[in-house]
C-alpha cells in the first residue's frame, strides 16, 4: 500500500510518516502544495493525507485539481479548523474524509484504512477472528476458546470495533463515535465503564488478557 502525505509542519509530518511506515505503508511526503499535486497526479497512490493549510497551493484546491484531472485517490483532509466549511463538505460528499487537529494517530490510521477499504471495495468478513476469540457478525455470537460469551448489544458493538482494529490502538473518542454515535466528549468515564465490562466477560479466567489499556491513548485488542 502506497500513501502520499502532504503536510508542511515538519513535526507532524515526521510523526505521520513514521507511524504510517510502522503500520506497513510506503510513504511519499511533500511539504508544499504544488509538489504534492505533481506527485498525486503522476504516482499511483492508494490514499493521500492532505493538510488544508499548505504553502504554494492550499489543500482543498489541490484536491479539487486532482478531482478535475480525474485522479480518484481517496483523501483524508487534515485541518486545524473545527467547523467544517462548505468546500470540505463537498469533498466529504465525494467520499473523502476529514480529521480535525489535534488527533490521535490511531484515529488517523483507522480512517486511512477505512478510506482504502471503501475505494477498493474490499468485501467485509462475516467472521472476525483474533486468536481464540471469534465473533460472528451474522449470528451475532462471540466465543472464546470454544465457550460462548453473552454480550449486551453495546458490548458487542465495542468488541466488533476493537476486533476490526485488532493490534491497533483505538482512542476513547473513536469508541464514543462508533458505539454511541456521539461526536463530542462527555467528560465522564463512560467508555472506561463499557471497556471494563467487556474485559470482565472476555478476559476473566484467561491467562492472556486480550483487551489492553494503552495509557493516554486508548485501548487495543491483541
Amino acid at each position, binding site marked *: 500500500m502506497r500513501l502520499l502525505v502532504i503536510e508542511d509542519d515538519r513535526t507532524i509530518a515526521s510523526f505521520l510518516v513514521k507511524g504510517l511506515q510502522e503500520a506497513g505503508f510506503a510513504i511519499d511526503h511533500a511539504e508544499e502544495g504544488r509538489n504534492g499535486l505533481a506527485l498525486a497526479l503522476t504516482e499511483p497512490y492508494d490514499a493521500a493525507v492532505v493538510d488544508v493549510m499548505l504553502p504554494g497551493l492550499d489543500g482543498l484546491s489541490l484536491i479539487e485539481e486532482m478531482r478535475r484531472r480525474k485522479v480518484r485517490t481517496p483523501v483524508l483532509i487534515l485541518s486545524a479548523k473545527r467547523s467544517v466549511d462548505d468546500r470540505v463538505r463537498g469533498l466529504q460528499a465525494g467520499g473523502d474524509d476529514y480529521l480535525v487537529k489535534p488527533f490521535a494517530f490511531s484515529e488517523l490510521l483507522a480512517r486511512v484504512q477505512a478510506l482504502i477499504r471503501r475505494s477498493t471495495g474490499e468485501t467485509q468478513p462475516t467472521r472476525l477472528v483474533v486468536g481464540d476469540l471469534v465473533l460472528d457478525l451474522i449470528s451475532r455470537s462471540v466465543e472464546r476458546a470454544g465457550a460462548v460469551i453473552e454480550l449486551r448489544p453495546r458490548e458487542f458493538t465495542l468488541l466488533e470495533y476493537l476486533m476490526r482494529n485488532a493490534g491497533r490502538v483505538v482512542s476513547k473518542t473513536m469508541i464514543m463515535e462508533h458505539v454511541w454515535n456521539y461526536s463530542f466528549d*462527555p467528560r465522564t468515564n463512560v467508555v472506561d465503564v463499557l471497556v471494563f465490562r467487556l474485559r470482565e466477560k472476555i478476559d476473566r479466567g484467561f491467562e492472556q488478557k486480550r483487551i489492553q489499556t494503552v495509557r493516554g491513548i486508548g485501548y487495543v485488542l491483541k
Partner: protein
Amino acid sequence: MTTQPDRARTPFGLRLAAWYAALFVGSAVVLIALTYLLLASSLRQRDQEIIQSTLEKYASAYEQDGLQGLNDAIRSDRVAGQHETLFVRAIGADAEAIYFSAPEDWSGFNLARLDAAPAPGTEVWSDVRAAQTGDVLEVASVRLPDGIIFQVGKSTRSRGELLARFRTVMLLAFASVILIGLTGAAVITRSALQPIRHLIDAVRRILATGRIEARVPARATGDALDQLSGLFNSMLDRIEALIAGMRGSLDNVAHDLRTPMMRLRSIAETALQSEAGSDAQRDALADILEESDRVGAMLNTLMDISEAETGTMKLARERVDVADLFRETVELYSDLAEEKHLTLAASSTPGLTLDADHNRLRQVMANLVDNALKYTPAGGTIALAGRAEDANVILEVRDTGIGIPPADLPRVWDRLYRGDASRSERGLGLGLSLVRAIVEAHGGTVAVQSDSGLGSTFTIVLPMEPRSSTK
C-alpha cells in the same frame, strides 16, 4: 476622507433649504398677486359703477328737465362734494359740447377720441390715456333719444395711487416673506438634518477613535430619522456586546489554558529529571497525552460557549423527539449509572417534539446527567422528565444528590466555577456554562433549584418553534 461627508451633506442641506424657500416665497408671490388683482378689479368695478350711476342719473335728469335739470343735478352733486373727480360732457346734435365739466388738471387727455357717437340707447365704454402721466380716463357714453350724447368719465389716477401704495406695502411684505422664508429654510434644514449630523458625528468618532461607545443622542420624536438614530444605537449596542463577549471569551480562554499548560510543563519537567527510559518517564508521557486531550476538549467547549453566547453558533435545527433524546442520553449513561448503583429513568409526554439542534441538545442532556451522576451518592435516582407548557418544552433533570449550597447556586453557570464540594471530582467546570449557552442560543432559559443534601433539579425551557424575530 474627512471632507467627503461634508460634500455629501452640503448639497442635500442646500437642496432642502432651497426647496423650502422656493415653496414659501412662491406661495407668498401667488397670494400677493391674487390680492392685488382682486383689489384692482374691485376698484375698477367700483369706479365703473360710479360712472354708470352718475351717467344714468344725469341722463334721466336731462330727459326730465332738459339742460336745466342736468345743471341742477350737477350743482347738487357738486354741493354734496361728489362731482369734483368726474368728467361730465354733453354733446348736442350738432357735435357742439353743450355741457362740459372736468377737474382742471385733466388737460392731458385727448378728448377728441371720445367723439365717435354710440348707437342710440346703447352705452359705450372707452378709455383715453393721458400722454404724460399714463393715467387713463374711463368714459361711458350714451346717446339719448334726442341725439344728445352724454359722457361721464373718471380718471384712474386715484385708483392708481391707491394701487401704487398697495404695491409698496406688498413689496415690503414680500421682502420680509423672503427673509422669513430663507431663515425658516435654514432653521428647518438645520433641525431636520441634525439627527443625520449626529449620526455622521458618531460614526466619525468611532472611526477616528476605534471606540464603539459613541451613541447618537435620542430625541424621542418617533419620526423616521429618530427611528434611524434608535436603530443605529441598537446596532452599536449589539456590536459592542459582541465585541465585549469575544474579548471576554478570549481572556477566559487565555486564563483557562494557563492552568493545564502549567500542568503539562511541570509533568514534562519532572519527567526530564527522572531516569531516561524509566517507568516514571513513560507515565509522564501518558499524563501529558491525557492532559493535552483535556486541553483540546476544553478549547472545543470554550469555543462552543463563546459561539453560543455571541450568537454565532450555527444551529442545525430539526424536529427533535424528546423521547429519542432521553433514550440516547439514558443509553449513554446506563452502564455508568448501574456501576454507581443509581437509577437513571426518563419519562416524557408521548409525541413531544421541538425544533432544535439535535446534537447540541444531546450535549446539553449529557452534561446535565453527567453532572447529576457525579454528585449523586449510591442508591439515588436521576430522573429525566419532559412535558409541554404553552409553546414551550420543559426538560427536567432531577437528582437525589448532595445538592448545591444556596451560596453557590447563582454561580454554578459561571465558567470553571466549582463549589467546594465538587473539587475532588474530575471535570472541566465548563459543562453547565455550555448547557446555559446552548439553551440560550436556542432562545430558551435554564434554571436550577436545589436543597442541600436532598438533590437538585435543573429545568430547561425551550421554545417548541424558533422565535420568528429576535426583537
